[in-house]
């Protein structure tokens, strides 16, 4: 049997037919072709699959697509502007070389943008604590933390400019 799941993904309304036991990450990647969200460990530990569901970071490998019915989902593809201008957090990762192989990056960026919601002026220690659910196998944490710190600042500046 299959379920009909309606979500808003990166601002676009979609309705997909999914198996009851389909994971959100598999529907994002395989049905919606949003392959920016990665599957690293597939055991809820590494955070490469992090997306936002109703504005909060979650591990999409540990959530059923059925559970996202009616939800607003944002993936890494939903951050940049329509003209390709990077989101301030993405720009900060580029600027600070906050990635090596890049596999963990989508999850890192999605976690970092959720930190802006909870603690927009996070200290370096608080950033490290927040990123406990994201593992970088290249161990490039120093530059990631620098990028997040700058990205948070840039997001605040963008918000202030908009107000």
């Amino acid at each position, binding site marked *: 049997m299959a379920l009909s799941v309606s979500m808003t993904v990166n601002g676009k309304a979609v309705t997909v037919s999914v198996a*009851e036991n389909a994971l959100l990450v598999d529907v994002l990647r395989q049905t919606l072709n949003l392959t920016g969200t990665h599957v690293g460990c597939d055991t809820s530990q590494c955070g490469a699959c992090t997306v936002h569901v109703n504005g909060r970071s979650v591990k999409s490998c*540990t959530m059923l697509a059925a559970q996202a019915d009616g939800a607003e989902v944002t993936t890494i593809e939903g951050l940049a502007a329509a003209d390709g201008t990077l989101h301030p957090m993405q720009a900060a990762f580029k600027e600070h070389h906050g990635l090596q192989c890049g596999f963990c990056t989508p999850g890192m960026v999605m976690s970092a943008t959720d*930190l802006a919601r*909870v603690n927009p002026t996070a200290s370096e220690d608080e950033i490290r604590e927040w990123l406990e659910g994201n593992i970088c196998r290249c161990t490039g944490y120093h530059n990631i933390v620098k990028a997040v710190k700058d990205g948070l600042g840039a997001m605040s500046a963008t918000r202030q400019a908009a107000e």
Partner: protein
Amino acid sequence: MYSFEYQHPKTVADVAAVLASDPDAKVVAGGMTLIPTLKQRLAMPSALVDLRDIAELRGVRADGDTIVIGAMTPHADVAYDATVRDRIPALAHLARHIGDAQVRNRGTIGGSIANADPAADYPAAVVGLNATIVTSTREIAADDFFTAMFETALEEGEIVTAVRFPVPKRAGYAKFKHPASRYAVVGVMVAETAGGVRVAVTGAGPSVFRVAEMEQALAGSFSPDALAGISVPADGLNSDIHASADYRAHLVTLMAKRAVVAATG
């Protein structure tokens, strides 16, 4: 994952009806333990009954001298709730250090205590603060709720709907966390409550337990020094690659002292 049906009833009564009609159905709250368990094919429920649509199960409210937390309230909401931070900061602190940020955004208090993982944080809060567990059919005192490893007093078909925490005079929580999972290798909640001092230990044994000798010592003098020389026997404590039973016994006293410091700080 094996296949299963998926249901999301709108009321607690409807959940009870589904569970009564299908003994192999399983309730899913945040799914932070259940979904990984399903992925490893360690469970084969006929149906998942998701509580996500039942609005009354979600949220934090103050009710006189108690804080009532709905079963479906995620850890993050407890951690950042202004009332919890103001009235029971030790509980907010505990919730803020469960798992990681993504887990705290999905995992719920009801799911955590119904699962009764021996290394989970919430059991220490529930027992240490002498909370009352409100279920679909009755109220259960914290001391009667956790019965064994992954076992609770919940009957078949009974679900947790809320947890009611009396506001303590003061309380503190300290844990020695597993560095990868952030589960408690040992976690201790110390609280001075209306009914006396309570010391509840998670992570160390098969299930959360109280330490009467520490409670008596702290009733005499609420200071870390009062705990010097008091230790729990290592017999029956958990022993694994992360920590031996002897080491856990040592950590119980150490974490209890730190919890007292946190409560008085």
